[in-house]
């Protein structure tokens, strides 16, 4: 798109202090950090979960493996890393001094944890009356279930979405590995932005109590209304649709390759028959009318599968799209990363790590689903553990070098996890992942596929490969 005026980042000047781990808050603060917010991620040296989730470049965790993990890089880009032991008074004191110069404090610990640190909303308001505080958990800060723990997959179940998803006649199916985490992350980002707007306008802060469960039920709102009006909702129906037919996911040439097709109108049905080279189906009493097709869905799906099975999944998609029929290949990670459309839109961004972060070099990351005519986000940096301890404590808070050294000595701050060797990851080899079924296949030459090699030649980094 054209650039109208000078580029700006919408959240420049906004400071967010985030006591976060796992996904639903980190992915929210990434959204805000990408667009210019100064996010200070408060990390604990005793719990570095996200930093030890891998994957490590070519499965080789190095000396400082906690700085090398791909999930950490993806979830924590553009955030400053400040390690603080919040169980110690100096840690709490430093965090309160930061609160005094921040706009937002966000946290996703279990209900009750921030109270133990003396960092609940009332305590923060004493320090900064117009602070915005977001607390985000599985079940919220109030109510009978408030202390219950949550993972995205358990919340999928609780929201009702799993009950509605699954194969015809089969058990409920979990939506997707992290759907509820990321949906909650988005809701977190949205409400923080609305609260920042509200504060610009009124000068008032606000206390936000976010629940992943409640965000999840808003995703099945239509089924909730249908139950109330009709006493029913759609059964689990695999890839079928309530009224579209044909509508499904069909096998293509190759192993585990699929294409989806959705036919909405009589006109689209006629065109589908033409593309399949089966004009005879238009006369076939089993399929000639919508009612007949509805009654003979299984036979129709089998006929379509017979056609798709011999073709490449992209060929089917492109031939049907030429005729305006909704169809798309079922893409996996490699398809997405090499697809011309996503590439042209810059949906995957390259970032070259500094040589201090051993063995990573240039990699590609998922970025943002929106683009602005004037504002442009990018990956500016990815912090090593404790990389910003000194800049934050000295430059923002005015701590003396002696005071910082003392905190280091007391273990309040640091750059290495407690008991690092115990955490040392033992990643399972790609061949084993494929054998056990968690991975479909392995491309040992993936660097060439992603053109990562050529990017590295000009860089300062010496690749291990």
């Amino acid at each position: 798109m054209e650039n109208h005026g000078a580029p700006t980042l919408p959240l420049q000047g906004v400071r967010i202090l985030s006591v976060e781990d796992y996904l639903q808050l980190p992915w929210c603060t990434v959204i805000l950090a990408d667009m210019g917010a100064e996010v200070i991620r408060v990390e604990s040296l005793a719990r570095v979960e996200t930093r030890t989730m891998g994957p490590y470049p070519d499965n080789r965790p190095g000396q400082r493996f906690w700085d090398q993990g791909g999930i950490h890089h993806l979830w924590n880009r553009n955030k400053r890393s400040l390690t603080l032991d919040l169980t110690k008074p100096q840690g709490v004191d430093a965090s309160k001094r930061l609160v005094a110069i921040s706009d937002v404090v966000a946290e996703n610990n279990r209900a009750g944890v921030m109270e133990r640190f003396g960092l609940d909303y009332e305590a923060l308001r004493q320090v900064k009356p117009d602070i915005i505080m977001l607390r985000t958990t599985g079940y919220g800060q109030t109510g009978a279930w408030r202390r219950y723990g949550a993972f995205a997959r358990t919340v999928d179940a609780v929201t009702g979405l799993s009950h509605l998803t699954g194969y015809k006649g089969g058990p409920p199916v979990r939506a997707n590995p992290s759907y509820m985490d990321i949906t909650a992350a988005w809701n977190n980002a949205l409400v923080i932005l609305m609260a920042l707007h509200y504060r610009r306008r009124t000068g008032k802060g606000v206390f936000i109590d976010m629940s992943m469960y409640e965000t999840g039920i808003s995703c099945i709102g239509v089924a909730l209304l249908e139950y109330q009006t009709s006493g029913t909702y759609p059964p689990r129906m695999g890839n079928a649709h309530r009224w579209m037919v044909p509508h499904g996911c069909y096998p293509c040439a190759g192993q585990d390759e699929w294409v989806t097709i959705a036919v909405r109108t009589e006109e689209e049905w006629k065109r589908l028959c033409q593309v399949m080279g089966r004009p005879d189906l238009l006369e076939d009493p089993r399929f000639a009318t919508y009612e007949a097709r509805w009654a003979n869905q299984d036979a129709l799906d089998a006929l379509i599968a017979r056609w798709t099975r011999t073709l490449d999944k992209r060929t089917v998609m492109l031939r049907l799209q030429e005729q305006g029929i909704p169809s798309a290949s079922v893409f996996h990670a490699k398809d997405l990363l090499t697809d011309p459309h996503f590439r042209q839109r810059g949906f995957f961004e390259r970032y070259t790590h500094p040589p201090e972060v051993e063995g990573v070099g240039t990699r590609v990351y998922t970025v943002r689903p929106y683009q602005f005519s004037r504002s442009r986000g990018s990956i500016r940096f990815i912090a090593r553990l404790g990389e910003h301890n000194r800049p934050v404590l000295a430059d923002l808070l005015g701590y003396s070098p002696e005071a910082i050294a003392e905190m280091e000595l007391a273990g309040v701050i640091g750059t290495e996890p407690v008991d690092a060797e115990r955490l040392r990851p033992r990643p399972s080899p790609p061949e084993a992942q494929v054998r056990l079924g968690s991975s479909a296949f392995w491309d040992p030459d993936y660097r060439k596929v992603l053109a990562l090699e050529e990017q590295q030649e000009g860089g300062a980094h010496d690749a291990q490969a």
Partner: protein
Amino acid sequence: MSIGLVNDLVVLDMSQGVAGPLSAKLLADQGAQVIKIEPPEGDYARRRGPFPHNIPHPEKSLTFAYFNTGKKGITLNIRTPQGANLLKELARRADILIEDLRPGELDALGVGYPALEEINPRLILVSVTPFGQYGPYKDFAVEDITLQAISGFLYLSGDADKPPVQVALEQAQIMGGRCAAIATMLAVMERWETGRGQHVDVSIAEAVASQPPMHIVQYAYLGVVATRGPRSPNPTDGDYLPCKDGYICITTGGGNPWEKFADFFQAPELRDPRFATREGRAQHGAEIQAILVDRLRERGKYEVFHTGMRERFVLGVVQTPEEVLACPHLNERGAFQEVAHPALGTLRYPRSGFRLDGQPAGEIRPAPLLGQHNEEVYCGWLGYPREALARWKATGII
């Protein structure tokens, strides 16, 4: 009285279906003044349903009713010169315009971003489309299943030995709508600094593709392609197992030692050294599954869920929509709001997912009837006489 986080914003929503309308609903439910601009025949969601008892009625589409709460409704045929002019008049007075026409169509009608910017430099134009404003797939026809497919979401859903399976209820569109609302608010924040609006290009496929993004990293760091099915052969990593009256999602998360898990399920055989490590549990997953299935057979799903959660395991109970509506925890938190709609009656709608300052957030007002607010908006807001309305109606402009 709830806090209206965005009750100063004036939003025009000329999008249809789910994604664009949801983005405007999310703002409307927090107080924004949203005017829904429908073509004279109405948003296509009015014809798609689902409808109560499957009886089609343009004022009873539950999809329309849910994704258009809190909006005022007007009709306008923007494909006529006078309609386009009226759109400009509305845009002059608005902060945000949300649209979902095919890329290029708005320009062709003479109301593309450059024209709108000239009228109102503070206006934020948000285009919510399947693949964004440019790129080889920008004109592709889509349905929810094809959006789930092309974005990598579908491939990861379902069982390894079966085809991928779609996630119910237009989740791709819902993801697109939520991301569009975020993008809109980012542009609003930028406008505080520059005083200027901008054009925002939201891609629904990219919204879906940004979750779950971990498989992208697995390929970019290792060259492995993640697939669907249980991520681990160990059922206590999140499998759904049957109880007496439904399903429970089992994880050993929460920090409890494995022995405590064995006690919880009254399954001393789980203390066998073969199951003591994660690796061992992965290796002997089928045996663990058989033991758990046996122990769960006589237990109720809620009993297992609450007992386990109180002991700090992380479990999930598979609830039906009616169980969600009846959930005491949700009701205690005020997660639903009763909304009276003239055609659908009074129903409980889920709120936004968060509470503000200790109160349920925002307020849900019913979706508009077709053209319900024509007079209020065209006469009351733009100042046209009632006769003009009659004339436009006769000529198909509204």
